[in-house]
């Protein structure tokens, strides 16, 4: 399994043709207390960069972009009752949705862990 990162602070962990998507710990720290996560419907298809979810804090609603194109297979039901999981476990239990990849080649445009850490350090 390999984890990639976007400049918009999403992470995507790829396992063959399937992947899990969430936002990074850095992103959650910038957003503050998450109050609600608007997740896509299973079966929804997105292109790379499309808005796939919305993460609400008290005073802001932030669009979450699909890192690569694909189709949603499952969403994280635990977030319905506990949106704070995105704060406490952004890169594990606070994942947002799972998807199948339309074109694994799009992953090449993303960053690896080291590159993302360097990117965040520059912000």
């Amino acid at each position, binding site marked *: 399994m390999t984890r990639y990162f976007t400049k918009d602070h999403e992470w995507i962990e790829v396992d063959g043709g399937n992947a899990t998507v969430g936002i990074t710990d850095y992103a959650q720290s910038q957003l503050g207390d998450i*109050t*609600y996560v*608007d997740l896509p419907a299973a079966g929804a298809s997105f292109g790379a960069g499309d808005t796939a979810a919305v993460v*609400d*804090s008290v*005073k*802001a*609603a932030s669009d979450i972009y699909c890192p690569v194109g694909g189709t949603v297979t499952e969403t994280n039901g635990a977030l319905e009752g506990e949106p704070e999981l995105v704060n406490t476990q952004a890169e594990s239990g606070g994942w947002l949705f799972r998807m199948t990849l339309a074109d694994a080649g799009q992953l090449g445009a993303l960053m690896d862990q080291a590159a993302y850490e360097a990117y965040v350090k520059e912000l």
Partner: protein
Amino acid sequence: MRYLPLSEADRAAMLARIGATGIDDLFADVPKGLLLDGPVKGLPNHASEMAVERHMAALAGQNLAAGSAPFFLGAGAYRHHVPASVDHLIQRGEFLTAYTPYQPEIAQGTLQVLFEFQTQVARLFGTDLANASMYDGSTACWEAIAMATRVTKRSRAVLSAGLHPHYVATAQTMARFTGDTLVAATPQLVAEADDAALIAAIDGETACVVVQYPDVLGRIPDLARIAAAAQAQGALLVAVVTEPVALGLIEAPGKLGADIVVGEGQALGVGLQFGGPYLGLFGTREKYVRQMPGRLCGETVDAEGRRGYVLTLSTREQHIRREKATSNICTNAGLCALAFSIHMSLLGGAGLERLAQLSHQRARETAAALGAIPGVRVLNDAFVNEFAVVLPKDARTVVRDLADCGVLGGVSLGRLYPGATGLANGLLVATSELNTDEDIAALVAALKEVLA
């Protein structure tokens, strides 16, 4: 000028502090030629309190106030007795001159009122939740349609023939620009609303069916039956209540399966006011809370653990979501919501029931008296406090002639449905606890004279 505290000496000292030589230094960014060199031409200068009051009182005197004539108008705006304490309390400066409660630590008064208001509306409507109010019933009705399109991801709304034509027109204005499809119809002068025709119009592409309850002719549609039909097609039922007092007698729409209940709250606490400001009511199911338009007040605790209230779920709203907001609404009708809430706190559920019974009683008496006039037919079998009669001639003329006799006798269907010749002889008559036996006798006598 009695409203401006600065003296000439103050102004001079302040300009000196700023480093300006004159007031127009501060308007230096206005391009030359666009800054007026004196008061706008063609308008009078300031006037004393006495002079202004005299002018406005003269204009007020040119109107026939509802309270000074036998009065039987409804059709979306209703006259009930408003207890004196309501107007006294809404004039307290801390309510009247406060802003939207964005700083909750110093706005708990307004916020607690909104929380109580939301609870009162939800219990009146039989819905899980209600919002903190909207502009009026007609705009709330459109907001319900828009919400239904978001929930169902469909764009077709079926409007009942009994929906107030101004509500239909308001929705049509909006739908013309959003591209949603509205299916509307004109009512027929028959005793019962055509629920079957409405149900037949619901299809698998329908986002919602919008039903006024009681309808514009005072008839009472079978909401439970329509709700079941809507649900079978995956559509929502939007119930529209223009006379909240009617809900003292007939079942709450939420209890009958309505998914969204909207209404005009003016009848309680607010008054007629020639059409505004009024009070939009909006209730729905808990599961749709994040699709709701308008402000919401929620309970929480403060840093010391004390109960308190805040505006919440504001990420739905325009000031955060901008072009992705659920609605462009900004202002609600806070002071009207306060008036409604105070009136409701005095009445309670028991008082509302009695108020509805009294209004209904007057309607039964009025209907019986009008129905006894030769050539006049009462349309409805069932009604609460508003019903339709069919006259032997054009009701628009009759209404004007009644006014010349000093009687405000109702609303003609010709005014509401211009061009619908089949409705021209229809007259809507509404009553409330304020109508006396003498009022009813005066209406009957005047109508006989006008029809003679």
